[in-house]
């Protein structure tokens, strides 16, 4: 009985993050209809994704301590945000690339991608509207 009470209390106290699916979006004027998971990883890990000759996408990221950022990187790369942060420090301080510029939240991401033809970003699906193009969906059960 005592154990049942302890387990019940623990279940109640456990933080439950139920995120919607995350969608990767670009500006409709980019001419890009879809991307592979490999290409998205390359873009967000400072590598050349080889999309179209001469086309460069500028990635935007969520704040370093945000839940949606942690989810995005875990679902795409399988790694926690701390590993991604250390990886970007390596790229930055070897002069290879600068980390993606940060935006405040989902709404700011939507606005940034909508206003910048070269931008690529990601956000929770519930914030999606018709002004951006979805190029990849990271489903919640991935």
């Amino acid at each position, binding site marked *: 009985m005592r154990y049942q009470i302890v387990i019940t209390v623990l279940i109640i106290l456990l933080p439950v993050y139920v995120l919607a699916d995350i969608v990767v979006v670009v500006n409709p004027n980019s001419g890009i209809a879809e991307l592979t998971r*490999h290409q998205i*990883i*390359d873009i967000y890990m400072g*590598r*050349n*994704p*080889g999309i179209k000759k*001469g086309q*460069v996408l*500028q990635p935007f990221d969520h704040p*370093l*301590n945000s839940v949606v950022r942690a989810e995005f990187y875990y679902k795409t*790369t*399988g*790694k*926690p*945000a*701390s*590993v991604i*942060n*250390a*990886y970007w*420090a*390596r790229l*930055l*301080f*070897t*002069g290879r690339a*600068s*980390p*993606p*510029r*940060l935006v405040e939240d989902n709404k700011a991401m939507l606005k940034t991608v909508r206003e910048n033809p070269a931008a690529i970003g990601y956000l929770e699906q519930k914030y999606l509207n018709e002004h951006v193009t979805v190029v990849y969906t990271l489903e919640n059960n991935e």
Partner: protein
Amino acid sequence: MKGLAFFHFILLLALLSAHQANAFDLGTERIRLSGFGTLGVTSAGEKKFGLQKDYIHDAQFGDVSVLTDSVFGLQLDIDLLKNITATVQVVAEDRARQDFNNIVDWAYLSYRPTSNTVIRAGRMGIDLFMLSEYRNVGYAYLWTHPVVEFYKPISLSHYEGFDFKYSRRIKPGYFEFKVYGGQTGSDIKLANGDLNLRMRPFVGFNTSLEDNNWKVRLTYATTDTAFIRSPADPLLNELSHVPQSSWPQASALYNRLIGVNKQTHYYSAGFLYDKHNWVVQSEFSLMTSKWLSVNMTNGYLSVGRRIGPVTFYTVGSYAKSRDNPRVDRTQIFTQGLEGLVSAAEDLLHAVHMDQNTVSLGFRWDLHPRAALKAQWDHTWVRKHGGGLMLLKEPLDHNITLNTFSLNLNFVF
């Protein structure tokens, strides 16, 4: 006192950096200022046998130091044109020689003619190892300090010249090839003085293939020792003038100990695996040269396991000279020559490397831009195998040493 002042300086910069956290956010601005630092406390060595993490730092003889691992760096990137960027990195740390030339670690221009190619020219980081371009950035790697057996033998941090890099995704992974050339050098600390080394030409290439969970890398480089000034010069000079009739071996020993005009070849292979919270990294290298001090092999294997924000790890490493010339004691030396023979024998022992280390530690990612690390190293050094140490007396028996280090690493 000087050490504490430097430590307080870095502590102050760390606190100021915490208020400048948004500097990291300037990802696409034309002018970007970024920084990194480490506040470290290290206990290492013994009274007569000093441990160094690399040759540019003072050795520790059993004391506690805040200078060994502490470092602060700033990097400025300026996009001059669409495809041309200027980068300058300055690094403040304890050094054998503190001057402007050594503090400026990098200063180069990079030109990106296509999305697959980058050409750089100026002063750049030496790219021989997996960590070589960011060994000062503790936040970027797992351990409290680069593996001594592997990273100390080449304490070169930068070179002046050019590099050309080509990269693209191919079927198995992301491919990179880099070729470079220029000149390099270092001012390093030895037991009885400073050593100044200039090497040119310095040329080489490295190639790597990586995917999300793994990376393999191969390196080759070669260089000539163009200039060397060391505390052993008077002894070597004396050795070169010994008549063949009085000590036939002297000339052969001189040729092994003298560094100038000797070519060194460097080969290394490394791999990294990072999946399911396991992190495995290993590198092995071979250096071949007629200069005894750098004719060696070394390597390490590091295995880590992430549990939440903490990664626990262990590292095993070794460094060993590839040969061990001895003074032929079957010859009877005159009393006048005996002093020189003994000194040459001590020098042969002093440059010989034969040691290995096992390390245990953890890294705690306590903040998106800061990590706390602790590490214990247990090092075995074989008799006359202390070439990676600073010795106050000849190492005529096997010893074991313990190093404890606690670091706070941060970036901004």
